[in-house]
């Protein structure tokens, strides 16, 4: 097999793994959009907030320590414990549920029935608020996140591919784990929405509010639940990205990468978010591999957006989105 093809295969594989991470972020958007018609601009910041909180809890950091010390002249910084990853993840999830409740109670509840653009603006405000809150609670320095996920080259894949192609693929263990976790997450989400009472109620609310009320579903409860699930997805995405590249502000910008994913996959489709993520992941890696040298490199920065633009022109509802037919 020619070298170029083997390299392309490695790039594709890496692209798929990167795509899984994009899909994870996009999934959070789709969940909220489907259930409440809100485009949640804050999804990326939620991932940042979740990762920050996780690190903070693990390291036993005192939340708001700067504020507390400034106000009371104290010198508290650490509780002096170090929690195991799983326990910290559970506690962070509790924080995300509390956040979901607050968002619904103090923001979204008061905007029921408003124009989508108003809801969107509210989530922009929420994004900046959360960003500030993360800094205030946990400080703004870059943090290392290690919940015990394996990292580094996957030796097994390396040796298998070396035997076959005479060239060992470099695949990061973290990417493999992320892929597995993302797959499990998607299966869990689909099972949840198809086979549980709450899932059925969630689909009902996404479809028709009045009808949902008439069969005894509390919209408020479902929305808190949906924001909690989105918070959970954000936490998973935050752990993956945080482990990969450190917990820092730029984490919230991955939300921007989710936009082209959504334009490809459609805003209303869970499979769409995954397929869209994979296409973008593979597409940008392969494109950079093949045409990068000709175009001066760094095509990964813009490829996804150009692809999304092309999609917007030819298939605005995305690959899996519901076609919008306007009656005249």
């Amino acid at each position: 097999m020619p070298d170029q093809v083997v390299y392309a295969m490695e790039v594709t594989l890496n692209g798929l793994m990167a795509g899984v991470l994009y899909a994870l972020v996009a999934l959070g958007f789709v969940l909220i959009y489907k259930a409440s018609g809100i485009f949640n601009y804050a999804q990326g910041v939620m991932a940042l907030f979740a990762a920050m909180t996780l690190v903070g809890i693990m390291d036993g950091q005192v939340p708001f320590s700067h504020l507390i010390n400034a106000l009371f002249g104290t010198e508290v910084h650490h509780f002096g414990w170090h929690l195991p990853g799983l326990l910290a993840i559970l506690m962070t999830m509790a924080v995300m549920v509390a956040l979901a409740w607050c968002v619904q109670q103090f923001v979204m509840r008061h905007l029921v029935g408003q124009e989508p653009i108003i809801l969107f603006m509210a989530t922009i405000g929420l994004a900046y608020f959360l960003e500030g809150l993360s800094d205030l609670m946990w400080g703004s320095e870059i943090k290392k996140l290690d919940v015990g996920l394996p990292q580094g080259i996957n030796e097994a894949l390396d040796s298998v591919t070396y035997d076959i192609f005479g060239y060992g693929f470099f695949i990061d263990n973290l990417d493999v784990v992320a892929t597995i976790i993302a797959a499990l997450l998607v299966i869990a989400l689909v099972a949840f929405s198809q086979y549980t009472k709450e899932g059925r109620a969630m689909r009902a609310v996404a479809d028709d509010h009045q009808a949902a009320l008439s069969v005894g579903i509390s919209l408020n409860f479902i929305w808190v639940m949906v924001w909690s699930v989105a918070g959970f997805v954000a936490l998973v995405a935050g752990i993956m990205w945080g482990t990969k590249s450190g917990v820092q502000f730029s984490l919230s910008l991955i939300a921007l990468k989710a936009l082209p994913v959504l334009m490809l996959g459609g805003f209303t489709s869970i499979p769409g978010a995954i397929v869209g993520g994979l296409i973008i992941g593979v597409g940008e890696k392969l494109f950079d591999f093949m045409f990068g040298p000709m175009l001066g490199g760094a095509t990964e920065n813009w490829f996804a957006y150009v692809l999304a633009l092309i999609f917007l022109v030819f298939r605005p509802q995305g690959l899996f989105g519901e076609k919008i037919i306007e009656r005249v």
Partner: protein
Amino acid sequence: MLDQAEGYTTADGRKIGGVVMEMKNITLRFGGVVAIKDISFDIREGEIRAIIGPNGAGKSSMLNVISGFYTPSEGEVWFHGAKRPQMRPFEVARQGIARTFQNIALFEGMSVLDNVMTGRLTHMKTGVFSQALWKGRAEKEETENREVAEKVIDFLEIQHIRKTPVSRLPYGLKKRVELARALAAQPRLLLLDEPMAGMNVEEKEDMSRFILDVNDEFGTTIALIEHDMGVVMDLSDRVVVMDYGKKIGDGPPDEVRNNQDVIDAYLGVAHD
């Protein structure tokens, strides 16, 4: 004929029981507009109660008050002998009051069966966590709910479209699916908002038959709104007539039909 505590017997020999729901001096205002003016009436166990009136009479508003979508500005709602506190629509639904809508509110993206199954939500006790922990119990509950749903589907003769997405159905069938979803809740009171609106003669006859059968078979108490006079007179045991937000008549169809106020306000206008 009407005994306050005991109820009454209809012309066709059905026994009507005590009061299920009582509206006491209901007034509903939207800003300066008065939609309902000081109306009182009751709905009794096992009867088919109709609320009729010309367009804009306040019938739908009244149904929305009963189902909790509107909160009355004045007056009290009594359900099963207890004064109902201010409730949101989903709480009213959980009390056992199911409804349909004039403009059909179905879950368009779901199949007929899934739509009917949502009617069972108020009867499902196991949540997501217990569902994960006690698989057996959750499965038993799902089977029981499924049985009720299938029974309703059979009863309303929509077996052939069980798996069809609702968005693909014609209007008449959608109305029937909506009725099925409401029935699946096994409601203590069933509210129908213009169940025959927009239907052709054949569909209207079908729907009338289903309403009578539901009442007969399950003993369901039904309150319905309709402006097709002929249909209402054949269907209902007692009729409330509204005009401009006021009650102008209340009684068995024959009595209402001969009430001069009703003839002036409604029948005369509608049938000349």
